[in-house]
């Protein structure tokens, strides 16, 4: 039996949009945008867990998720000048991360070369009464086993709360395709969870 990492209970979605005190965040972001690496490291420490987990869920491969998370922070550093501050830094970073993961998928040279695990490195929240750890683990494993397109849309829509319109724009598919992929993902997941 693999040792599954335990994470803290998930906060409400609205709370995920702002990390820390906004004034301090703004200060850190401004400092980082001016080239302050220490400020950027603080931003990294605050956000790496969420960035890594998003990468892991979207790609289903722990070692690739590490690479993508690193790349997401490097991209964020490079693009800090274009962060306009009209959303929380964590929200902006989330979008940068999604773009990095989707970009990697288009970079096909390594896409098929990777072996996808069955979600054994994904977290199980043992401190939350619902869903039960077993249910969460089953769901994580089932998500990891989904086909790429269906997994991406399910993670973005049902886990991360994106709408089809935004998913369509980020992934370059039609809204109808996004809906169809979600339908497919849910069908596969319900079948997997029922078995």
């Amino acid at each position, binding site marked *: 039996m693999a040792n599954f990492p335990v994470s803290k209970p998930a906060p409400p979605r609205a709370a995920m949009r702002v990390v820390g005190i906004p004034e301090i965040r703004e200060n850190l972001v401004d400092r980082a945008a001016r080239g302050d690496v220490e400020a950027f490291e603080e931003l990294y420490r605050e956000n790496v867990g969420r960035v890594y*987990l998003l990468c892991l869920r979207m790609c289903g491969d722990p070692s690739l998720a590490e690479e993508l998370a690193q790349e997401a922070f490097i*991209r964020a550093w490079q693009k800090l000048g274009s962060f306009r501050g009209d959303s929380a830094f964590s929200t902006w970073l989330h979008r940068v991360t999604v773009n990095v993961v989707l970009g990697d998928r*288009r970079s096909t*040279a390594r896409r098929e070369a990777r072996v996808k695990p069955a979600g054994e490195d994904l977290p199980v929240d043992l401190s939350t009464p619902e*869903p039960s750890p077993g249910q969460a683990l089953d769901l994580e494993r089932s998500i990891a086993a989904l086909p790429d397109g269906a997994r991406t849309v*399910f993670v973005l829509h049902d886990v991360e709360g994106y709408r089809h319109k935004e998913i369509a724009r980020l992934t370059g598919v*039609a809204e109808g395709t996004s809906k169809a992929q979600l339908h497919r993902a849910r069908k596969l997941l319900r079948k997997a969870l029922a078995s």
Partner: protein
Amino acid sequence: MNCREFTDRIDEFLDGRLGTVEAESLRMHLADCTSCTAELASIRELRDLATALPRSLEPPRDLWPGIEARVSRTKEVRGRFGRRALLAAAAAVVVVSSVVTAYFIGRSQAIVLTAEPRAAVESGPSEMLLASFEGLGVNNYLDTRTELLDALEARKHELSGETMDVVMENLLLIDRAMDRIAEALGEDPENEFLMKQLAGAYRRQIDLLQRAVRMPAEV
């Protein structure tokens, strides 16, 4: 409302985003359809489960040293030339390489757009172009694409519905072509012809978006 229409609207219904009339129509359908009632309950359960999943997980190793090594190098360059000068230099390289791309710089949303000569579109991407794409990275393409789509979205009330339909239809066609090329590359990653085709498709999509964003107001 039939079962298919129900399936199309189920997310809006669950999110409370359906209008009163449509929501009522959906409820009436549910009252008569046990299959859709079961479907709704099942999807609601799955969504609740997904929403409650953890949002954060520390990676097995500290990723910062690798990030620090790379950002520190950038810092040295930034400190020497300044961010705007660096981006301007990057834009100049892009022009020389005949790549179509866009940089949205700074909080003022200054935009630098560069366009390639038309002949390059017809003759296909050059080796230099491919090298440039490699240097820029596909993520830049996706970011640029998303930013141009945002710009197009902001302008859509100025463009006719017909124009928007044509643009979106063509984007979709290019997307599908790119998916097919990407699939083929998955089986044959070193295929130079396919790489050229993919790079050409990226470029055409950005070109299409730039043209749409620059179009004079029609409405």
